Structures are given as C-alpha cells and as structure tokens.
C-alpha cells in the first residue's frame, strides 16, 4: 500500500496505539519525542538544501573553470551571481515544496493524482490578489501593517482553496473512488480546466464595475527595499547580495507551514488517523476511523497548503492569472515524485532539489552558452526530463522505500 512513510506501523501496532491514545494519561508523548518527529524532517530538509546548493555551486564553478580558457571572465561572472541563484533556488524550492505537499498527501491516502491541485494554488493567488485589490480600493493598503497583510492573505488563500478542495473531492472524485484508476484522473483533469475558466470568468467580471482582470496586479503594502545580506568582492567590483523581504516572508511562512504539517501528521491523533487511512483504508475504517472524513480533511489540508503557496507566490511575484497553476502544479508533482510520492518529507526535499536545479539551469545555461540558449525556457524541459528520468530509474523517489514491484 502507499505509505505516508517514514512511519511504517503495522496495522496491529496502529490499533494498539489507537486504543492507548483514547485514554488521556497513557497517550502522552514526551516533548522531546514530538520535537524529534517534527524537527527531524526539517534537519533532513536543511541537509538537502545545503547539499544541493553546495554540489550545484561546485558544478558550475568547475564548468566555469573548464570553459574559462575561451571566455576569461566567465568564472567571475559565475561566482558573482551564485549567491543570488541560490536564493532564487530556495524560493522556487519552497514554492514547489508547499505545492507538492498537497499532491503527496492526497496520493498517500488515495493513490490518486489530484491533477487539479495546481489550480488550488492558482485560486490561493487570486484570493490574495482580491484582498490586496479591495484594500487598495478602500485606500488603506499603504498604511496596512505588512505582517498583518501576510497573515490575512495567507489565511484567506488557505480557507478558500482548502474548502474548494473539499468541495471538489465531494463532487468530482468521491463518486469515482472505486472506479478504474484512470476514471478519477480524467475527472481531475476536467476539474482543473473548469477551475481555470471559473477563475477567469470571476476575475474578468467581478466586481462588475471594475473587474480584477485577467492579468491581475497583486497589490501589497510596501515591504521596503531589498535587504542587502552581504557584499561580494569580485575583482574590483563589489556586488551586493540581496534578498527581497517578500522572498524572505515566503521562505519563513513556508517553513512554518512545513513544521505545522509535520506536527499535525506525526504528533497528533488526527495525524495518526490520516496515516492509518493511508496504510489501509478498510482496516482503518474497522478501527472506527471515519475514512470519508479523513479524506476530506486530507484534501482540506492539501488544498489549504496549495492556497497558501499561491497567496505567497502572488505576493512575491506581484501578479496572478487564472492559468498560472498548471506549470507549477506539474513541477510540484515532479517534486513529489522526486522525493518519493506519498512521503511528506520527500515532497519537501524533492521541491528543494527541483527548485535549485531550475534556478541553476535558468541562470547558468545562457551564461555558459554565451547567451545562445535561453536558460529560462529550458528550465521547464529540465524539470520534465527529470520527472521522466526519476520515474524510470528510481520510481520510488529519493526518500521512498524501494518496494518490490507488485504484480
């Protein structure tokens, strides 16, 4: 069965634990234990961040050295932008990671690819844009507390996308739960298309007097100038390495959400019920778990995370449109597969690795080919090629358990 690994409880152990936790005194886990289950994955994540940044950084430096015979200043140019590329990779990585969590949770429980997940991300972004839009219309956006604004847009995006995900599951997936595998997938593709156009219909018509528009600006309070982290001395020049406050917010909020999700899934009764459902739905239901409720909850959490990611993404980029969910959605799916689908830590790790790969390709491909090839365009190709390669050579993903192929 699909594991929300790494906790491979057998059903028996699960049952015993479930019984144990019904009594308030025996079920308590020590604070240290909880910290371990929650922070352990984060350490792993940190390890992958440092590892990916270091190894890719090293790779481009070695490449630059090899090519520096023909272009003398290549090395300095490569080094100059490196910190910025790493930061860019981090932002992209966290973006993919947050979206990938939704895919992976739903897959973990239902073994179903929620194709419409990218649209939940998009909806989160659109909701955030509307919040900014109305604050702007009310004329209070400039004086608005920037941190309160983040809280408001994230909360709004999470609520709308989460509830939308639950509704979609109820209408378009639940009736098909026992149908052949491709049937719900096709339905999900349909949902994805419907949501794209519904969002468009809404954005181009609401409010009637002055609609938000197709390519909508994402208003937000002023977050001040970019923070200069440090100055890099390259030759005679001094290059500042900057981090925009919005990117910092993105990374911080995403990290907090990951901690929260880890806590929820690994350290609460609810999380245990989710894991049990993922392991074995019929048995979980025999243990008194309301499987339908848990599935709705999974969609709620996954959708909310996607919505939050969308709201933050819009904030960071400054614009949203109704079709913006598809490609990040596909990439996030790639990230989930890369990390080992069904595995929460894996989804984060996969997101980070993919984000770094893309950032490096986008920034360095043009540089190494003398501007002949646009790196940004080929970043997509890298992502999909990676998906294909991973599925062929290590379908269980980076962190997934190698399982025997079932017949």
């Amino acid at each position, binding site marked *: 069965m699909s594991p929300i690994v790494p906790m491979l409880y057998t059903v028996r152990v699960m049952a015993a634990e479930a019984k144990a936790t019904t009594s308030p005194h025996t079920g308590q886990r020590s604070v240290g234990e909880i910290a371990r289950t929650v922070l352990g994955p984060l350490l792993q994540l940190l390890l992958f961040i440092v590892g990916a940044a270091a190894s890719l950084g090293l790779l481009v430096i070695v490449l630059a050295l090899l090519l520096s015979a023909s272009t003398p200043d290549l090395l300095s140019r490569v080094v100059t932008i490196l910190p910025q590329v790493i930061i860019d990779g981090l932002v992209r990585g966290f973006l993919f990671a947050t979206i990938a969590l939704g895919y992976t949770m739903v897959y973990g429980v239902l073994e179903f690819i929620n194709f419409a997940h990218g649209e939940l991300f998009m909806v989160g972004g659109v909701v955030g844009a509307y919040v900014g839009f109305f604050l702007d219309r009310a004329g209070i956006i400039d004086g608005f507390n920037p941190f309160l604004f983040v809280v408001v847009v994230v909360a709004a995006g999470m609520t709308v996308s989460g509830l939308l995900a639950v509704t979609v599951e109820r209408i378009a997936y639940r009736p098909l739960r026992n149908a052949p595998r*491709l049937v719900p*997938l*096709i339905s999900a593709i349909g949902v994805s298309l*419907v949501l794209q156009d519904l969002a468009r219909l809404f954005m181009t018509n609401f409010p009637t007097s002055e609609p938000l528009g197709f390519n909508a600006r994402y208003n937000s309070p002023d977050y001040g100038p970019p923070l200069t982290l440090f100055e890099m001395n390259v030759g005679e020049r001094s290059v500042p390495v900057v981090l925009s406050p919005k990117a910092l917010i993105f990374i911080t909020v995403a990290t907090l959400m990951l901690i929260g999700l880890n806590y929820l899934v690994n350290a609460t009764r609810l999380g245990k019920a989710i894991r049990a459902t993922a392991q074995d739905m019929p048995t979980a239901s025999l243990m008194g778990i309301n499987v339908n409720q848990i599935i709705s909850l999974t969609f709620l959490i996954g959708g909310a995370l996607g919505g939050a990611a969308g709201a933050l993404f819009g904030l960071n980029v400054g614009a949203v449109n109704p079709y913006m969910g598809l490609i990040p959605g596909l990439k996030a*799916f790639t990230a989930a597969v890369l990390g080992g689908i069904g595995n929460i830590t894996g989804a984060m790790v996969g997101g980070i690795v993919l984000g770094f790969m893309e950032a490096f390709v986008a920034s360095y491909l043009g540089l190494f080919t003398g501007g002949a090839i646009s790196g940004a365009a080929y970043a997509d190709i890298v992502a999909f090629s990676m998906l294909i390669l991973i*599925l*062929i050579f290590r379908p269980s993903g980076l962190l997934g358990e190698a399982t025997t192929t079932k017949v």
Partner: protein
Amino acid sequence: MATTTPPSSAWERLTEPLRSGPTAYGFLGLYAAVCTWLLLTNPRTSLGTDIVFVLFLLLVLFTFRSRVARPFKIGLAAALLGIVLPIFGTLNPFYIDVATQAGIFVTLALGLNVVVGFAGLLDLGYVAFFAVGAYLWGILSTPQLTEINPAWSPVPPIMFYPFVLLGLVAGGVFGVLLGLPVLRLRGDYLAIVTLGFGEVIRVLANNLDKPVNITNGSQGIREIARPPLIFAEPLRGLGLRFDDQQLYQQFFYFAVLLVVLLTMIVVSRLKSSRIGRAWEAIREDETAAIAQGIPLVRMKLLAFAVGASFAGAMGVIFASKQLFINPPTFDLLRSINILAMVILGGMGSIPGVVLGAVFVTLLNLQILPRTATVLREAQDAGFPIPETFDPTQYQRLLFGLLLILMMIFRPEGILPDERRSEELHEAQQAQQEEPPPEEAAATPAG
C-alpha cells in the same frame, strides 16, 4: 460475435422501423433527399443551415447504424460525403472547411483511441505527434529550411504526397522514442509523463529559434507549401470553373476524407486481429495478458506508434491546409480536446470516437460561435449578459465539465463499444467486494 440484440427500451422499439426493414430505406432516402434539398437551395451561413448541416452529418451516422443492405449503406454514405457535401462546399466554403476540420480530428481521435481506448494507456501529450508531422512539412517545404542551412532549399510542393507517408513514419518513430522509456510506468504516471512530453515538444518548438533557427520560435512558420493542383486542368476541361481557393478546399476535403477512411479501415482491422485482442487483454488485466505470452512493452509500443503515426501523417496535411503553424496550435488544450472526443464518443468504440470527434469539432467551430452570436444579440436586446462573456472563449470550462460529467455519469461514452459498456460501471461494485487483483496475486500466499 455481435449478436443482434432485441430492442429493449421503449424508444428503441419505437424507432426500430427506422433502422431495419423497408421502412428504413424509405426513412433514410427521404431524410437524405430533404437534407440535400435544404442545403443546396439555402446554403447561406445561418442558424438554420447550421442545424441542417448537423442533421446531415447525423444522417451519415444513422446510415451506418441502421440494418440496411451493405451496398445501400455504402452507396448512400458515398453520395452524401462524396457528392452532396462537396457541391454544398462550392456554395458555402465555411461548411466544407468545418467538415475538413472534423475529418482531421476524427483521424486524431481514432489514433488516440488506439492508445487510450484499445490499450488503456492515457496519453495526455498526443498532440505532440501531430506537431511533429506539421513541423516536418512546415520546415522542409518553406524557406525556413534555408534559415537552418543556407545551402538547403525547400522541397518542391509535389513532395507533399510522399511527405504524408513520411509524417506517418516520423509520428511512429516519435511514438516509439517516447514509449520506450515510459511504457513501463503505471497508468497515472504515464499520463503525467506524456503530458510533460507534450509540453517539452511545445516549449522546444517555441525556443528552437536560437542558437539555430529551426522552428522560427513563437512566430511560427508561414506560407507552408500546398501541393500543385494537378487536377485543375482536367476539371476546367469539364467546364467546371473554380478558383484555386475553392479547388484547395475540395482537395483537402477529399484528402482528409480519404485518410479518415483509411484510418477507420486500419483501426477496425487491427481491433479484430490478434493485435487488437492483445491490446484489449492488456487493458483488461496486464498480468493475465503477459501470462498468455503477450509481450507487454512491445504491444504497448505498437499501440503508441500506431496512434502517433496517424497524428504525424495528419500533421503534414494540416500544416499544408492551414498554411501557418505556431506552437500554441499544439498546446495541452488541444490534447485535452482530442481526449474529450474519445471519452465523449466512447473509449474503444470506433463509431463512438468518430461521433465524438465530429461533435466536438462542431461544438468548437459552429455551436459555440453561434451561441456567442445569439448571446450578443440577446445583449443588444437588453438581456443582462456580461459583455466580456464570450462562450467561444470558455472551452476549458466546457470541456472540463464534459470530462467530469462523462466520468461520473457515462464513462463508457455516448456510443459505447458493445462489449465494454458494462465494465466501467460494474468495476465499481466488483472492487468493493474483492481486493484488486494486483495485490491478491502479490501477497506471497499460497
């Protein structure tokens, strides 16, 4: 094998005389005569003509579904599609263009049906193979080729004919190239990977203008060659005066009709052969199929290659007909469109898929624009319809809803494959009772 089932529903009993016996001949003959008369006497583009045109196409379907003598069937269909429609086309070019487009999509849908319907492999990047054929002819028949290498000059237009075959081969080769790495994947992964592949092809088409200009990037390729009109002179000799525009319309109509017929023949022969049975067996139960000595990967590759080759060949014809191609022509929405045709008509069912393709094409080219006109008129008359709302712009919404509703209420399609209809519904109950076969066999029990 296909035993004639006695009519069951009240509707079927009521309409039975229209489908068999002497009344059927009368009905079809009268229907054909009325449609022909209406079309030829009143060819102006209008809502009325739209409706008659749809009824006309439905007549072709009725003819094939009715139980009349084979020569009558073929004769009537040939007269309708080979004589009436082309003549009507000379009176109103719009409708023959719609028919040609419908034919193009019928071929694509039949090709995708081999992959999705017969072999049960969900391919979401099918349009990539169409793009391969289109770009093949687009690049090689235009000065774009000179862009790649100044020493090369475009192939002469007469090479169009061999290039249709070359498109067939190129599509097949790409099918195998994509299939080889991905066909071992499980169904849902396969769907996503093929989608990724489709996107990769589109992104490549969009970006291969640097460092060497191969595809002319997002600008697309213009002035794609059309084959010389070798039959223009003899037609003039017969006293038929058409301008080139009309002649090309007729030419592409008949070319597409021919390809559609060939595709239908090939597909239905494959379906009833050892190959078709092997595909179907794979779709039903891979483990049981392999235990019968069916080489899974090879048969899946074959399905991929066959499906892709139809798209490749049609790509060449499409590029030549359109004169212009660019990357957005081959986007994901187009793949979804073709998938919707297959699903709407009925996966695995040849008549169903043809119907689905024709219907979706009509929807895109006629019904939606017509609805838009009607809405605009209603708007002018004062109905509160938002100005920005244009139904032709909401294809995603429409096809999305269509996919969801079909999956929930009629996964077997409108005209299901006779033997498949029950499967999709019954599987839901069967699976609740016993564990899916995969796991049952995998448990090391015994």
